[in-house]
């Protein structure tokens, strides 16, 4: 009896093993071993910031590509790409690390609310419906699509200003928030030396007067910064200034001349005493305040 049981069970086991082996051989898919090697070197965030579906897709693309110039893992940055390059024996271009910046500074004080939104809390839905709760139809809606989209806990809506703020140490510049923002406010910019950056924190393309009426912090396209810039880094287009991160030498002169304080500087050391209170700010603040009152509709 025992013998029969052993033989039959053993037979079933052996047949099963043979079957498994045969199928695994028949349906085996050859995969370049380097792909898994590259994948091990990647940060495994699967954020899609590289433009491929997950780290595995990116690894396969790296192995397949002739040069790594157009491929970049935004999360890992240069160090990871160098590792990948050594594994594959290819050259890598040194992509400058980037970081997300929010180009809207229309906080609650600057942008008077003209209506109330009562739909689903979702920027994409609100933006399909209308311009937003304030007179500025370009600015941040503040409902946090970017916050939801971020896998790295790096962007949060500030409860006071209702604007998103980026935690630069956590930001991997994967670009998820850039895609999530229906107003295209978030931009990936060069991180810059010591993380120092200067950018125009506004995307309003209305004419100066209109923009100013809607938001006292708006870029009004006055071109003062353009004239001030010695490096030809600032261009005005559609009533809006844009600072080219490549040409910008971080001299900070434009920050001072901006009448609406729309140009922001990040991670710079504090200015010296006499510069600490920019002339423009002191001079123009009452005017800005006046424009807010003027912008308040009567009803």
């Amino acid at each position, binding site marked *: 009896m025992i013998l029969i049981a052993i033989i039959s069970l053993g037979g079933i086991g052996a047949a099963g093993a043979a079957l498994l082996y045969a199928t695994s051989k028949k349906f085996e898919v050859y995969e370049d071993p380097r792909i898994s090697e590259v994948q091990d070197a990647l940060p495994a965030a699967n954020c899609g910031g590289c433009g491929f579906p997950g780290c595995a897709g990116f690894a396969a693309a790296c192995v397949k590509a002739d040069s790594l110039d157009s491929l970049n893992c935004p999360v890992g940055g240069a160090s990871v790409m160098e590792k990948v390059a050594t594994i594959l024996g290819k050259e890598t271009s040194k992509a400058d690390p980037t970081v997300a910046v929010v180009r809207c500074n229309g906080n609650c004080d600057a942008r*008077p609310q003209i209506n*109330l939104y009562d739909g689903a809390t979702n920027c994409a839905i609100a933006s399909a419906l209308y311009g937003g709760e304030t007179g500025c139809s370009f600015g941040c809606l503040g409902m946090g699509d970017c916050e939801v989209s971020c896998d790295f806990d790096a962007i949060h809506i500030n409860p006071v200003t209702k604007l998103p703020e980026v935690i630069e140490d956590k930001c991997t510049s994967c670009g998820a928030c850039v895609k999530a923002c229906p107003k295209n406010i978030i931009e990936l910019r060069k991180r810059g030396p010591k993380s120092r950056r200067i950018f125009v924190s506004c995307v309003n393309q209305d004419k100066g007067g209109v923009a100013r009426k809607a938001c006292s912090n708006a870029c009004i396209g006055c071109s003062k910064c353009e004239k001030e810039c010695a490096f030809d880094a600032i261009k005005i287009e559609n009533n809006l200034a844009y600072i080219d991160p490549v040409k910008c030498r971080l001299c900070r002169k434009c920050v001072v001349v901006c009448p609406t304080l729309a140009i922001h500087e990040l991670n710079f050391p504090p200015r010296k005493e006499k510069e600490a209170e920019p002339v423009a700010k002191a001079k123009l603040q009452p005017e800005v305040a006046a424009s807010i009152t003027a912008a308040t509709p009567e009803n």
Partner: protein
Amino acid sequence: MENKLIISPSPHIHSGDSVSKNMYGVLIALLPALLVSLYYFGLGALIVTLVSVLSCVLFEFLIQKFLIKQPQTIYDGSAVLTGLLLAFNLPSNLPIWIILIGALAAIGIGKMSFGGLGNNIFNPALVGRVFLLISFPAQMTTWPVPGTIPMDYVDGQTGATILSLLNEGATELPSYTDMLLGNMGGSLGEVSAIALLLGFAFLLVRKIISWHIPVSIILTTFVFTGIMHLVNPAEYVNPIIHILSGGLLLGAIFMATDYVTSPMSKSGMLVFGIGIGLLTSVIRLFGAYPEGMSFAILIMNALTPLINMYFKPKHFGGK
């Protein structure tokens, strides 16, 4: 700036329907059955119902307040409903401490562990009942004999239900009139067919549920047990007795139609109902348990996501 206009996507009006309106609607539909049980089981029924309802609400409150820290939902009526349905599935002489365990199982395991109303897979009241049935089989299957507003609680005279009698092979059964009115042994709410059907009519009129699930369950059970009865009348009883006895009507009308755990499309509802009918009949006729309704509903609850996936609503202009 007093008059800021409100902006929202369309539609700008709402039917005024709400979760609590539906829940309280079901509670109203359960009132006739509750009155009948108070008449036949008296004080015991009152104690069991009160303890069950209050403890369910309390457990929901405590869990939301201290464990998962969600906003309170005890006013939407769903905890009250779970408590009442649980009580309806218990014998009227069940000790209070067992009821408390049942309520904890129903709310804690059946509902809140999934994230509260809307996320649970199984009908919470049935989770509580089955938990007790398996843990305390003796207490859960001794039913007091119905009287006229009896004032005794745990020490009253006990008897068996029709189904347990059948399972043991007895032949002496209550009359159809007694079954319709509820003058027979059994859990609190399941005894009176007329009271339950009254509630069914109310639910249909108020459009709280549709006919699909209850009718398909009852018809399937009737047909299946009917065929078995025709094949062997000596072994299997008349299908009408199956319909009127045990928790079939209570389950078909009030438990299987639970929004959260039943399919969404009409065709899915029919499949769901037929499944419950078949499983109930099979368990009753061939299984070790005399009653199969709760198990049948729980099994079909588990299949609901699958049914939802394969039985989609009829698409306009569809193939």
